[in-house]
């Protein structure tokens, strides 16, 4: 058993050449210096001003000089450790290490029993966390739904409590209120056994956001500053939509995303040099037929891959997006959109690819079946990321000579010795002869995935909490359902 979660090196997919990375970088510096970012939060604006940025408080515009950006990029760690509650689930974000996990946050799920779309509840936070814990290719749990069956002020603590209770993989999430953020940090300290333990092994991290184009608003920026001061890892993703809140050209969208995400990163580094901040993108396009946000667009994957190249240039780990679909049910469209986008972003070597499991319908609806299917899609993507290992043993010239013309390799020891790591073995895909497939009920992909999801929810036993800890947490936070 390796000590950390399975590691794969992406990075073979480049969507533009290296000199174009510099071109985008120079354009970004120019925009930061000349156009600036609108920072509505006066406290954040003051921090920028105190460190020498050119600030117009009246217009709320902050112009970030090249040197300030360069200092921040140099100060931000190139290696960010996101821990699980168990070491085997630790993620090492650096270089082109590639992990995929869940994301959201959605308000609806397809009910596993009825197939009907219904509001998400606390049981879904728990259910999807448990699925994350059980499925081998899900590296982390970005809390993917909003429980609609608890009071607004109890949402944050319920989201994180039920996540920790059901998976020992890394938990990341957005927050809704400052009080909720403080609750979640205290809850995490209690689980870790104190602040020092929590910071040494951060099994929780947070997402704030930048508004495209080029805006940092008040509340999320307050969250950002609070989290950075405390010291837990953070990402500040931007979500420019090509053609709407960004230029329709993908290079322009990558550029604006670059400026926005770096602006968040600069603020974090100004507050605390060396803070573990992830470069972030959730960028996609606007559909020009309906005028709405699209999640499963191929261009989204290209923008995310482009952002991964930018992050690799800055040597800062990236939080990216891939593997979503706009279909309403776990059907063929759901499969091909998720597969194409997850594959492209994974091959680009983005480090922390969220939204890759279970998401349908413009990132508004979850599906348990799709999460199982996505586990297989991501398995295939990771196999592609691994590429072809070439050495004397794998070229196998001596084996080819030994078997000779007209022989076969099936019964050779070399085959038995390598097959498990050379081949990906799917579990959802049906590879039976028609006769056997018919005998087993002629089930389609979603129906087979449903059976597997039901089995996980029924039988999987996550690490959970010791009895006394659970009692303590429930006593301290009466709002926990």
């Amino acid at each position, binding site marked *: 058993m390796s000590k950390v979660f399975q590691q794969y090196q992406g990075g073979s997919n480049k969507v533009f050449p290296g000199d174009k990375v510099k071109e985008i970088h120079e354009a970004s510096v120019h925009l930061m210096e000349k156009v600036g970012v609108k920072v509505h939060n006066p406290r954040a604006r003051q921090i920028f001003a105190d460190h020498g940025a050119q600030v117009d408080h009246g217009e709320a515009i902050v112009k970030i000089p090249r040197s300030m950006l360069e200092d921040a990029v140099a100060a931000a760690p190139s290696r960010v450790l996101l821990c699980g509650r168990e070491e085997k689930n630790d993620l090492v974000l650096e270089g082109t290490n590639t992990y995929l996990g869940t994301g959201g946050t959605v308000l609806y799920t397809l009910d596993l029993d009825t197939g009907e779309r219904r509001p998400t509840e606390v049981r879904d936070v728990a259910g999807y966390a448990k699925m994350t814990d059980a499925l081998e290719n899900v590296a982390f749990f970005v809390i993917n739904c909003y429980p609609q069956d608890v009071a607004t002020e109890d949402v944050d603590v319920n989201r994180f409590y039920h996540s920790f209770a059901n998976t020992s993989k890394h938990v990341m999430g957005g927050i809704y209120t400052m009080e909720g953020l403080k609750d979640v940090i205290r809850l995490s300290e209690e689980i870790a056994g104190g602040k020092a333990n929590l910071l040494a092994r951060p099994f929780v991290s947070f997402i704030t956001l930048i508004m495209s184009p080029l805006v940092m608003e008040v509340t999320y920026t307050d969250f950002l500053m609070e989290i950075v001061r405390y010291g837990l890892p953070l990402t500040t993703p931007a979500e420019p939509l090509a053609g709407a809140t960004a230029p329709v050209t993908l290079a322009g969208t990558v550029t604006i995303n670059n400026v926005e995400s770096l602006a968040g990163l600069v603020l974090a580094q100004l507050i605390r040099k060396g803070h573990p901040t992830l470069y972030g993108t959730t960028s996609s396009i606007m559909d020009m037929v309906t005028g709405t946000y699209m999640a499963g667009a191929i261009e989204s994957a290209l923008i995310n891959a482009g952002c991964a190249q930018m992050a690799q240039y800055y040597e800062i780990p990236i939080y990216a997006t891939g593997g979503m679909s706009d279909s309403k049910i776990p059907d063929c469209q759901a499969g091909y959109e998720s597969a194409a986008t997850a594959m492209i972003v994974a091959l680009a070597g983005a480090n922390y690819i969220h939204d890759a499991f279970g998401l349908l319908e413009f990132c508004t609806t979850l599906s348990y079946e799709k999460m199982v299917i996505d586990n297989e899609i991501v398995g295939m993507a990771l196999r592609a990321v691994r590429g072809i290992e070439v050495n004397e043993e794998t070229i196998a010239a001596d084996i080819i000579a030994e078997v000779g013309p007209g022989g*076969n390799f*099936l*019964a*050779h*020891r070399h*085959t*038995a010795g390598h097959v*498990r790591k050379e081949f990906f073995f799917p579990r959802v895909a049906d590879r039976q*002869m028609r006769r*056997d497939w018919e005998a087993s009920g002629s089930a389609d992909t979603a129906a087979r995935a449903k059976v597997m999801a039901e089995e996980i929810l029924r039988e999987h036993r996550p690490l959970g909490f010791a009895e006394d800890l659970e009692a303590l947490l429930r006593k301290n936070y009466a709002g926990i359902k």
Partner: protein
Amino acid sequence: MIQEIYTKVLAGESDGVRSAVQKALDEGIKPSKIINDALIKAMDEVGARMKSGEMYVPEVLIAAEAMKAGLGLVKPLLEGEAYAVGKVVIGTVAGDLHDIGKNLVTMLLESSGFEVIDLGVDASAEVFLEAAGKHKPQIVGLSALLTTTMASMEATVKALREKAPGIKTMIGGAPVSQQFADEIGAGGYAPDGASAVDLAKKLIQ
């Protein structure tokens, strides 16, 4: 020691099986017990794991090879005791040079305790008939991969039915089906290696 043989067969370790079998013999364990309680029992487990998808074809084949390595040591010591559960003559029919499927079935049958006489590829009806007369098997297995050789499979099955009516035939290969088996009057059809073993066991009952 029986347990060790069993474990080594599952792991596909031929050398390990040979030395464990030798030790078992040195300890005075009866050859028939080694075959039935260790070697064949291990292959039964291999068959089960293959069906459930826990073991893959190449792993099954090296386990079968390890089993045969052990069997080679024990077989000469059997004094008139029959160990084989049945006898099968097998071959790829005339005009067809493909043998991977047939070899797979051969190894799986052998490792399930069958004695198998392999006629190789491109075997004519005459070759099958002659072998049937000489070896007196309960079953003749015929394999074809090319659609074009289905006719020679039909001719061979017909010749066997006429001239060796007591022998059951079973067929397999990509182009054939249960329907084709029924049409040509074959005794049975198996879609893959593991079901070929089940079918053979059924046919000899």
